C-alpha cells in the first residue's frame, strides 16, 4: 500500500531486569522514537499497542505531553500482535483517521513472578483445562509438543534448531545493544544445555527480559521530511488459518499448518515482492521451531523444508535469507517481537549492526503459533 511510513524508531536499553516500570519504559522508548523522527509529542494523534500492554493511552498522553488523541487501538494475541500494531497504524493514516501514529510495546518479564504460568488458579475454565493439569503448563511445553511431531514428520533435527539459535546468537554478538552481545554460543554449548521441555533445551527458548520499543508512523507524502530515510509499510496482513488454535495446534487436524499460512496468502497478494525477492527477514522466535514453521508458512521454503533451509549458513549474514539480524528474541531481547520490527526498519535504513547489502524490502512476522500478522517494509 505504501501510504504510510515508519520515520522514527526508539528503544530503551535491554536487560534481564530493569529498575523502571513498564510505564516508564514505554515513555522512554516513545520519546526516543519521536526524537529520532524529529516530531514533537504534541503532534501525535494516534496510539496503537497490544491488548497485553499495561500502560493506558490516557496515561501515556499525560506522561509524554501528547495533546488530543483521535485514534487508538489494541491488537490481541500477545506475540501475534506486533506487526498488526504497525499495520493498523498505517491503515489509520491511509484512511485519514490520524496523521502521526505511535506503536509501542513495553514489557517486564525478567522476573519469574511476572510470567503468566506463575499464576496458579485452582480451576481452569478455558481450553487449557484439557492440557495444563497434565503438565503442559508453559508456552514451551505446547511448542515442544508440536516440535516433536514436526521433527518426526519431516525429519528435522536438533541440529536444525541449533542452527537457528546459533545464527541469532552470532547476530547478537555484533549488536552492542543485545543482551547476549558479549556471550558467544557454540554448538557444543547448545547440546550440553539442560532440557526445558524435551525435545527443546534452554537455547531453544527466547530470553525473558525487560525493555520497550516504539515506532512513529506518518503519511508517505511527508515521510521524507524527517531526519532518517523512511521505511514504507508496503504490505500487511493478519491471519488465522482454518481449524487452528492458539498455542495448542496439536488438537488441530492440520496441526503443522500454522497461522502463518493464512497470513502469507494475503500478504503476498498485497505485495509487489515475492518471498524469493526477500533477502532479510525478522522472524518471530520465542522458540526455535517457530522459525522453521514461519519460513515454510510464508513460502521461503517448502513445507517440511525449514530444517535443511537453515543449513550451511543459509539464514546467517551472507546466506540466502539473513534472519533475525539483531539477535532476535532468542539473543537480543524478548519484547513480544517488537524489537524485530525495529530491526526491520534498520535494515531498510542501512544501519543494522548485521547489515545486508542493497536491501530493498524487509520482511517481519509475529508469532505464528497464535493469531498472527506480518509486514513487508520497503525502501
Amino acid at each position: 500500500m505504501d501510504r504510510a511510513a515508519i520515520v522514527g524508531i526508539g528503544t530503551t536499553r535491554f536487560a534481564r531486569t530493569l529498575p523502571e516500570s513498564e510505564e516508564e519504559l514505554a515513555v522512554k522508548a516513545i520519546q526516543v522514537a519521536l526524537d529520532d523522527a524529529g516530531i514533537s509529542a504534541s503532534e501525535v494523534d494516534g496510539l496503537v499497542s497490544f491488548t497485553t500492554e499495561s500502560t493506558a493511552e490516557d496515561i501515556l498522553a499525560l506522561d509524554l505531553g501528547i495533546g488530543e488523541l483521535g485514534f487508538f487501538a489494541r491488537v490481541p494475541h500477545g506475540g501475534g500482535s506486533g506487526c498488526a500494531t504497525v499495520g493498523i497504524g498505517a491503515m489509520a493514516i491511509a484512511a485519514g483517521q490520524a496523521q502521526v501514529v505511535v506503536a509501542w510495546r513495553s514489557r517486564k518479564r525478567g522476573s519469574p513472578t511476572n510470567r503468566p504460568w506463575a499464576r496458579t488458579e485452582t480451576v481452569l475454565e478455558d481450553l487449557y483445562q484439557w492440557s495444563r493439569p497434565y503438565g503442559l503448563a508453559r508456552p514451551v511445553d505446547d511448542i515442544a509438543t508440536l516440535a516433536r511431531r514436526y521433527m518426526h514428520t519431516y525429519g528435522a533435527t536438533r541440529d536444525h534448531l541449533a542452527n537457528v539459535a546459533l545464527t541469532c546468537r552470532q547476530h547478537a554478538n555484533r549488536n552492542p545493544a543485545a543482551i547476549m552481545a558479549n556471550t558467544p554460543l557454540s554448538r557444543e554449548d547448545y547440546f550440553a544445555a539442560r532440557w526445558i521441555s524435551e525435545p527443546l533445551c534452554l537455547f531453544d527458548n527466547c530470553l525473558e527480559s525487560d525493555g520497550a520499543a516504539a515506532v512513529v508512523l506518518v503519511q508517505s507524502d511527508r515521510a521524507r521530511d524527517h531526519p532518517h530515510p523512511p521505511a514504507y509499510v508496503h504490505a500487511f496482513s493478519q491471519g488465522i488459518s482454518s481449524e487452528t488454535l492458539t498455542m495448542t495446534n496439536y488438537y488441530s487436524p492440520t496441526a503443522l499448518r500454522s497461522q502463518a499460512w493464512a497470513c502469507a496468502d494475503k500478504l503476498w497478494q498485497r505485495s509487489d515482492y515475492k518471498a524469493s525477492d526477500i533477502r532479510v527477514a525478522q522472524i518471530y522466535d520465542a522458540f526455535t521451531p517457530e522459525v522453521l514453521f514461519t519460513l515454510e508458512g510464508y513460502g521461503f521454503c517448502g513445507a517440511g523444508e525449514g530444517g535443511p533451509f537453515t543449513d550451511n549458513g543459509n539464514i546467517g549474514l551472507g546466506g540466502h535469507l539473513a534472519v533475525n539480524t539483531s539477535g532476535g528474541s532468542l539473543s537480543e531481547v524478548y519484547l513480544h517481537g517488537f524489537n524485530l520490527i525495529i530491526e526491520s526498519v534498520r535494515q531498510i535504513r542501512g544501519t543494522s549492526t548485521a547489515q545486508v547489502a542493497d536491501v530493498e524490502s524487509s520482511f517481519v512476522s509475529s508469532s505464528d503459533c497464535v493469531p498472527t500478522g506480518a509486514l513487508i517494509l520497503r525502501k
Partner: protein
Amino acid sequence: VWSFIVLHRPVLPAFEAGLPMPVVVVELDLAQPIRMVGGLDTGTVRADWSRDLVIGAPVQVTFRTVTTDVTLVDWKLVDDLDSLSARHP
C-alpha cells in the same frame, strides 16, 4: 501416541514427584483426528517408557482419581491396538 514431551524440572510443586515426566498427545484410534492430552501411566505394563514411548506407540486409556470430583485421563503403553479392539469390540 501422536506426540509427547518430557518434563525434567518441576514447573509446579504438584509435578515434582516422578520427574522426568512424560506428557502425551494421543490420537483416538476410533475417532481420528480427535486428540487428547494426558499423562503416561508408568505404573503398569512397561517400566522402561523412555525406550518404548515413541510417536505411533499404541496406548490404552486409564483413569487417575485426583479428588472426589477430579479424575484425569492417563494412557498406558500396550503391545498393539488390535488385541484391545478384540477385547472391547
